[in-house]
């Protein structure tokens, strides 16, 4: 009797463990997602990179997206984008459990393909758990073509970044990461900085790193449309593929027809020789 009861408990336990694992896997597979996977940068203003959220960030409702972590412990982040003059600006508002050091990176591509991501703009906040004592460090990195590791961009042109705690009573729990990126850097090393042009869209990824673990890229990639989309179709000229096979076949048919006509003319000239022969006889 006891053994039967023990067996039932064991089965129940196995069932609970299995269900929990299955549900966890399912939840993990679904993963956290951005509320919008495509955002459009609006024309903002010339910003001071100080980690303070100016009004120009909230002028429109198409320039931001929100990311909520599945785990209840972790918080959320909101990403904003705007452009002004030659610069593209990003603002990340993060709300996590306070950790000692915290890094947010923006991985930039120069196209709408994830394969072209090579430029990394990184801001690290130290003393992130203590409001008022925090400091930040911005770093420009790039992935060389022959490597999977990111290296420091020594020329480091046209990038500024600052992180700081919220400054008023209502947002003291939030950390602000503000990025200023030159859209078309004038340095000669185009392989180190992303060249961003208006009317196009670009794939980006956000990386997060707490001091306790390595940097992880947030699940989904985002598409950032720089300025209005309408003109993109007019400006972008697609490649025009000439059908070389069709062309050469047409050419060869023409040559064959003309060559055939010459053959007919050649055969018809035989009659002339025939006439001459008859005249001779």
């Amino acid at each position, binding site marked *: 009797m006891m053994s039967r009861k023990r067996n039932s408990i064991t089965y129940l336990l196995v069932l609970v463990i299995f269900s929990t694992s299955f549900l966890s896997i399912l939840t993990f597979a679904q993963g956290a997602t951005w509320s919008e996977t495509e955002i459009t940068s609006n024309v903002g203003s010339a910003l001071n990179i100080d980690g303070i959220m100016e009004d120009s960030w909230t002028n429109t409702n198409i320039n931001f997206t929100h990311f909520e972590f599945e785990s209840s412990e972790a918080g959320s982040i909101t990403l904003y984008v705007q452009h002004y003059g030659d610069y593209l600006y990003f603002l990340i508002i993060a709300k996590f459990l306070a950790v000692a050091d915290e890094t947010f990176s923006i991985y930039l591509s120069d196209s709408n393909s994830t394969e072209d991501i090579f430029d990394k703009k990184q801001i690290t906040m130290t003393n992130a758990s203590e409001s008022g004592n925090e400091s930040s460090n911005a770093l420009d990195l790039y992935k060389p073509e022959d490597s999977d590791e990111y290296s420091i961009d020594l020329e480091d042109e046209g990038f500024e970044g600052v992180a700081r705690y919220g400054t008023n009573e209502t947002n003291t729990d939030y950390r602000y990461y503000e990025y200023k990126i030159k859209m078309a850097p004038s340095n000669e090393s185009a392989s180190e900085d992303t060249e961003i042009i208006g009317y196009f869209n670009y794939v980006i990824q956000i990386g997060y790193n707490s001091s306790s673990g390595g940097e992880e890229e947030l699940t989904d990639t985002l598409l950032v449309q720089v300025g209005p989309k309408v003109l993109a179709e007019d400006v972008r000229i697609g490649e025009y593929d000439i059908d*070389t*096979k069709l*062309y*050469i*076949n047409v*050419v*060869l048919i023409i*040559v*064959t027809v*003309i*060559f055939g006509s*010459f*053959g007919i*003319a*050649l*055969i018809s*000239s*035989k009659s*002339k*020789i025939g006439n*001459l*022969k008859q005249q*001779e006889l």
Partner: protein
Amino acid sequence: MPKIQKEAKKRKEKVRDLESQKIQLKQKMFSSSVKTYLFAAIFLIISFIFNGQLIPKWVDIVSIALGADSGAISPIVLLDLLIKSFSIILFFFFSFVSIGNWRELSGYILTWKEMTILLVFSLIQATTDGSVFIISSIGIVIILFYMYFIQGKIEKEIF
């Protein structure tokens, strides 16, 4: 038979001989023109098949050989290149001879205009492949050089 009549008969026979020789020469030229035309047609067909990429399997084999990163040129690629180029060069050569004979048969000579047209029709077959175009151009220039300087000289010496 009076002497004057004999001479008239001899002259008539001579004229007939000359006429007969002329017809024979024309017949020879005609048959040469037809033969070279047929050769040119064969090479045009070869060019059509290879330059027109009419055998998909061969095109696949060549593109695989071309894509193989072995450093040296693959023999298949080289063979494809040679077939394409030489079919054009030989098409030009035999067409040149055929048209030349035909024009002569009609009592004219091959002019620069006709030569240029033939040159265009030959090289246009190679416009999709730069290497074939270069090799064909070199081959055709050599043929023209041969025809103009060497063959022309031989003919001058004979006649």
